[in-house]
């Protein structure tokens, strides 16, 4: 490499800056707008103030939305993470007849537009007791989320050596001991990544939620949506910034604790 690197390094760094700028445009715009004290959203902003941040944190509706989003995200995580992980684990470890069909079916929700999932569930459960509960929103998210986690875990498991489990069995471990002593610690980082991804994707989801929430269970992204679509109220930019910060913090957690090596393992 030597001189080759030195030369290409300048070009590459320049290209990186350009692509990064392109990528960062929306984030920067939203952040600047959220600091504008004006009564309606506009760009470029005209001033600097934390006015709308104060508003956000003192307003019951927005606070409620934030909490609801957390409830739904937690519920989704509880449903989709075990399902997705077990499905991927079974797919890699065992041979069974319906294996290929199973694999195809698991991936369908991932390629189905999420809008349709929301509508379908509304149609199915709209007039049942589940209507307007956190549960129905979480189920919708879990459909997509299970599929996504299945895909992530497939990638993580493709580097996983089942010999460790055989060694544990050979040394006298029963199924439970094998799982807690070997499988869990070895796949720990992939499991945590799956949890974080399940949480964050559910937390920011709007397309399905908008069909399924009531005014009691309304989530932050749905509030944001309504606010932006009909009022263009500046507090929406604050909510946006909070969503993004939330996402970035979780993403940082993933990379910090498990390294980018882990991300590339799970296909990131």
């Amino acid at each position, binding site marked *: 490499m030597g001189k080759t690197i030195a030369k290409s390094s300048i070009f590459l760094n320049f290209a990186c800056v350009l692509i990064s700028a392109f990528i960062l445009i929306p984030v920067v715009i939203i952040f600047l707008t959220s600091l504008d004290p004006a009564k309606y959203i506009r760009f470029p902003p005209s001033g600097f103030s934390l006015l709308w941040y104060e508003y956000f944190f003192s307003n019951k509706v927005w606070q409620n939305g934030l909490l609801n989003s957390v409830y739904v995200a937690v519920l989704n995580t509880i449903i989709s993470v075990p399902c997705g992980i077990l499905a991927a684990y079974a797919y890699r470890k065992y041979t069974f007849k319906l294996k290929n069909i199973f694999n195809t079916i698991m991936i369908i929700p991932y390629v189905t537009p999420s809008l349709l999932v929301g509508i379908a569930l509304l149609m199915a459960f709209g007039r049942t007791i589940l209507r307007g509960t956190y549960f129905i929103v979480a189920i919708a998210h879990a459909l997509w989320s299970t599929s996504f986690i299945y895909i992530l875990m497939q990638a993580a498991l493709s580097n996983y*050596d089942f*010999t*460790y489990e*055989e*060694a*544990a*069995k*050979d*040394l*006298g*471990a*029963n199924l439970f*001991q094998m799982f807690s*002593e*070997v499988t869990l*610690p*070895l796949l720990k980082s992939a499991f945590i990544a799956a949890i974080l991804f399940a949480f964050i994707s559910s937390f920011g989801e709007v397309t399905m939620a908008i069909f399924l929430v009531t005014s009691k269970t309304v989530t932050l992204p749905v509030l944001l949506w309504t606010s932006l679509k009909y009022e263009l109220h500046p507090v929406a930019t604050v909510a946006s910034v909070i969503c993004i910060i939330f996402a970035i913090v979780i993403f940082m957690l993933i990379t910090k604790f498990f390294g980018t090596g882990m991300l590339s393992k799970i296909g990131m």
Partner: protein
Amino acid sequence: MDIAVETRNITKRFEKGRVVALDNVSIYVKKGEIFTLLGPSGSGKSTLLRIIDGLEEPDSGDVFIDGKCVTHVPAHKRDVCMVFQRLALFPHKNVFENVAFGLKMHKIDKNEIKKRVEETLWKVELNPEIYALRFPHQLSGGEMQRVALARALVLRPAVILFDEPLSSLDKRLRDKMRVELKQILKRFNLTAIYVTHDQEEAFVLSDRMAIINKGKILQEGTPRELYEKPQSSFIANFLGDTNIFKGVIKQMKGNLVIIELQDGICITANYTETPPISRDVLVSLKAEKIVLSDRPLFENHLEATVKEAIFVGEKIIYVVELNKELTLKVIEKNFGKTWRKGDRVLVNWLPDDIILIPE
């Protein structure tokens, strides 16, 4: 005779029965013995090991450990331990925890665990004070090897199974580790089944060995028996560097047989057991059983020309030509006089070293 492990008529098929991995395999291993399964890759040797360990079940046939039938006993309840090919040391546990794993699974008392783990680490020549807290990735290849062995040893199983555990080491370390491994196994009088495709490894380690090919046991015996008395041309060819010729028996007097190889080139052989039954035989002569000289050394000697002399450090490999169609491979150790391409030499051998194989 105390039998530690026995398999009876084990058959195993893969891919819905289309591939026969093991075909009616019966072996036995005596207590305190190191038994080696030697075979090319895909011969079924690892499958047999996994069946003995309980990681796979045979389609038919039975496995006995210490006289009890364990065919349907799951792996974690069998009194055998395996040292895996890629070792499979738990990467998230340190040396102590790796070795203690089996004891912990069996709910042994903590103090007892500590005592036995340390004892075992000493056995494999790892100082517990230095190594106990290291993680597998901090160990060298040889040290990992020893930890893997300790992890199996500590459970004092009836048999330890080895699935080519040395194959990932480089040659120098492998040579060293195999001698060490044998010393440890012998010092503690352990029973072991060792699977390998490396004949040197099999020779150095085994008390008794079997050669397996395409799921069938071809021959079993001590390393020397197999090497010096192969019962088929496959084994004669497979073990060592062998010159094999077709020949016709011309004459038999007493224990001596005179065989014509070609164009009147005749050699003399001894047979000690049953005389050959057909006139057509295969004659096998290992390359190291031939001695090159400039004057006759033994009764059996022929003139030849050196076609190639390949220097390989401790030994020199010669290719010599008896006539246009008959060349021999000769191995001499790198000592004293060496020959060059084109030299005229005498090739000498002892009649005892000629092996006759029915064609």
